[in-house]
């Protein structure tokens, strides 16, 4: 990236004012609660929202972490727990931002409707480094299943995290780190 990146500390629940200063490429460090979920839990949540039912946990102002962890070894809160590919959640993400989720954490690009939804809702998308399953697990200090234990790894998880590292990939202005960085480096490597 060309511009200098800054470090922000995020402690959910998040307010618009926590997210307004974030720019793509900035680093964030998250401490507090994060809710782990992937395809199957999203399907359930959006179905509940569509029926006007309350979600099992109030996720307004919260951060969703797209993850399906491995089982916890003895003496550890969780197994490997790196981010999964976010685009699979694109079908659900605008609905979750509209509901009040303020940030999602995953890896890879987001579709245009998701980016628009972030602008509309003053929300952000953060990326964690894909494949850092062991490193990111060490940032999770406690884990429990918040809903749908029958979904196994795909349940809705509640994590207590400390200094969980991520990078701002889409900010409240709808900028996209992937597009800008790849364009910049492709030009440079010509």
């Amino acid at each position, binding site marked *: 990236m060309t511009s200098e990146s800054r470090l922000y500390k995020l402690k959910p629940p998040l307010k618009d004012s926590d997210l307004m200063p974030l720019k793509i490429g900035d680093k964030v460090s998250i401490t507090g609660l994060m809710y782990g979920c992937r395809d199957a839990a999203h399907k359930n949540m959006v179905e509940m929202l569509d029926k006007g039912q309350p979600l099992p946990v109030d996720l307004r102002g919260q951060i969703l972490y797209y993850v399906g962890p491995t089982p916890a070894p003895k003496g550890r809160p969780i197994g490997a727990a790196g981010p999964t590919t976010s685009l699979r959640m694109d079908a659900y993400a605008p609905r979750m931002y509209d509901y009040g989720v303020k940030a999602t954490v995953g890896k890879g690009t987001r579709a245009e409707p998701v980016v628009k939804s972030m602008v509309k809702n003053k929300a952000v998308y953060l990326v964690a480094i894909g494949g850092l399953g062991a490193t990111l697990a060490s940032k999770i200090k406690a884990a429990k299943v918040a809903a749908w234990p029958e979904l196994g790894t795909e349940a809705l998880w509640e994590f207590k995290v400390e200094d969980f590292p991520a990078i701002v990939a889409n900010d409240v202005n709808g900028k996209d780190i992937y597009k800008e960085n790849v364009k910049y480096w*492709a030009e440079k490597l010509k």
Partner: protein
Amino acid sequence: MRKAFKDAAKTEVNPQGREILQMISENAEIAEKEWLPICQDTGLAVVYVELGEEVRFDRPGLKEAINQGVSRACKEGLLRASVAKDPLRRGNTGDNTPAIIHIDMVPGDKMKLTVGAKGTGSENMSRMKILTPSAGMEGVKNFVLEVVTQGGSNPCPPLVVGVGIGGNFETVAEIAKKSLYRPLKDKNKDPYYAKLEEDWLKEINKSGVGPQGLGGSTTALAVHIEALPCHIGALPVAVNIDCHAHRHKEAVL
């Protein structure tokens, strides 16, 4: 792979990319020390069997034995159960079975097993296409570059890119997958394809995608090509991508 990450960290032009490569190396060290998988997607078990024609099996037979092994690895190794029972009705088989099994008969009384644990972030970004013969080498190369560039950040670069050329609809994908499990340092035995592997790797690394798609010169660590004779009217090509959690092991029994 760890050596490849360290080497790439020396040549990567983007400072953020170098930092990411460093983090990937550290993750492997933490995983080893803490007995955790390097990635939570512990993959779909893909098993290649080179089966000697003189080998005989007791019950329960080869396929059942492989599946029992995969199930034990999932439960005892605390791997993630990542297999949906049905593609549309979903559900989970609970133990990563059934494995994808490819059996090839060879002369002799031995059996060679190659096991890959294939993550799906990269599998989802893989593509196949049947070109016309007039597309030639350039057409195949452009398709490979298109697949890698369009995949961008999603398949978790730096990648290993497996390319199948020739054969037909089903075999082109099979050879692309199989090429992934060739050791990284080994080139195609045919010097023509070995040269293409080298050239295409350079081109891929000029795409700007970089580590994790956040920009840079390390988009792929290797390109592996396998080719097969094909119909005079077709030029099939398959690009099977693997992420940096490139896990495979061989054993001869």
